[in-house]
């Protein structure tokens, strides 16, 4: 039995290592590109490691846009969007999963349909709406559209549906309100999924390009993706600096990911699949 488990674990390591290598390889290339000079970064065939390490690229980003200001804006927008999206999505998911009401299926389908129309055609009407309400070129204008995510509601609802109703019934019997049940029964049970949504919401906001592109005009409010796009000229792109900029952009999401991962330690990990 023990021998079998060792073998299984060894195999798991082998496969995981192989898969991870394939998945990380292009990124590793990008990372090494951030330290190459402009000629080497587009050289064919490429070099795996920089022939000489060039740390200038990160400093040179500042020549194209105010990196720290844009980073700060991105952080403010992404944190606010994520916090609000989690709140709104868990609340609505709870209603869809655990509070029966008339027309629930219909309303839920309506939610889903909002994912089915390309953002490219709703973008301009949304812009007109925001400019009529003076929200263009404000933080609120950047944050508001990202809060309401049918996608997040759907994700959390799927998880909440798996919570046995008896569990909730028991709480109701004890006289708990819907709010109490939400707070102390349902939300704690879907923590891993909320953690997953935290990552996706943060990433979605952090990488969002199209909306900030049109919703913001002043440098004081611009976010990192807008800055990164400034590394591309009409005729040529500074690939070395672009790589460096993308590495900078990568780090915060990765940190959020690492932190959220803490909530992924439940159930299985105590004993492992035998």
């Amino acid at each position, binding site marked *: 039995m023990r021998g079998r488990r060792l073998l299984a674990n060894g195999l798991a390591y082998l496969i995981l290592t192989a898969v991870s290598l394939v998945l990380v390889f292009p990124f590793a290339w990008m990372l090494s590109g951030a330290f190459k000079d402009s000629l080497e970064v587009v050289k*064919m065939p490429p070099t795996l490691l920089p022939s000489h390490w060039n740390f200038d690229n990160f400093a040179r980003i500042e020549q194209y846009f105010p990196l720290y200001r844009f980073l700060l804006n991105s952080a403010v927008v992404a944190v606010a969007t994520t916090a609000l999206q989690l709140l709104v999505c868990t609340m609505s998911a709870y209603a869809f999963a655990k509070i029966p009401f008339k027309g629930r299926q219909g309303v839920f389908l309506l939610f889903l349909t909002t994912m089915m129309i390309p953002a*490219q055609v709703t973008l301009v009407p949304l812009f007109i709406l925001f400019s009529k309400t003076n929200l263009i070129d404000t933080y609120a204008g950047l944050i508001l*559209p990202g809060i309401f995510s049918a996608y997040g509601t759907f994700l959390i609802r799927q998880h909440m549906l798996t919570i046995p109703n008896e569990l909730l019934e028991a709480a109701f019997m004890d006289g708990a309100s819907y709010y109490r049940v939400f707070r102390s029964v349902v939300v704690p049970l879907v923590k891993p999924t909320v953690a997953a949504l935290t990552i996706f919401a943060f990433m979605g906001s952090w990488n969002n390009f199209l909306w900030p592109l049109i919703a913001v005009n002043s440098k004081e409010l611009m976010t990192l993706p807008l800055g990164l796009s400034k590394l591309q000229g009409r005729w040529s792109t500074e690939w070395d600096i672009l790589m460096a900029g993308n590495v900078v952009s990568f780090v915060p999401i990765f940190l959020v990911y690492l932190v959220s991962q803490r909530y992924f330690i439940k159930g299985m990990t105590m004993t492992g699949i035998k």
Partner: protein
Amino acid sequence: MVGQRQWNRRIAAFVFLLPALLGLLAFQLLPMMSSVVISFTDWDLLTNWTKMHFVGWSNYAEVFREEKSYTAIKNVFVFLIGYMPSLAVLGVFLAVLLNRSLPGIKAYRAAVFVPVITSWVAVSIVWRWILNGQSGLLNYLLSRIGIQGPIWLQDDTWAMVAIIAVTVWKDLGFVALILLAGLQDISEDYYEAAELDGASAWRKLWSVTLPMLSPTLYFVVTISLINSFQLFDQVLIMTNGGPAGATSTIVEQVYKNAFQFNKMGFAAAQSWVLFAIILAVTMLLQRLQRRWVIYER
């Protein structure tokens, strides 16, 4: 007493839904309804929006008349057929592996998520090199086992295959993470019970893991379906819809018609045709979910 409880329930449903409903109405349904109106106009996205002209159904008629629309729909279905099964199967496989409690598993969980975070723009240059016909890494590896690889991104039969592969690479970690979150929730008791019955690992996968995971899997399938139909970013960056329209997709056309070809009305009509297709397939999926998705435990 029952009446009181029902009343409470209605209020609770209303309160918990309210923020989402308000936001949905203002930031999604309103623009969506506007795009319905736009789809019946000749708006060019140059003239002021207050001056658009209604043209009846002619945009829709043109969508169905244009050969390009059919190419795009065909391309999207080809993508879907290649992308969705690979993603679901590989995703479950990877999630199960990542769910093991092994020393250092966190590092692997971090590694598989790296592509999800990496931006398309930066990574596209690496992929274009990997997929390069003459001096690319992939064709070099293929040649070692005696296969002469095509010029992936510049070959009209292989370009879509390359797009599928690259997208699976990018999305695999994302799907694995969602499935992992679902796996965390399956109680150990089920496996112990199965073990007592003498079930093999394979048997446990089929009779415990997959049924328990089915609600999450349903989410993954639905989302990857919707994403497939909206295939856009990677196509624009890697092939720009080419060569000769081989990777042209519906949203790629919508984007170009709206912002480059001055045909916003037409783009809106295309979007609504796309909407109808996605809705139909999603409804079908929802129908089918009763057969395989198990919510109650």
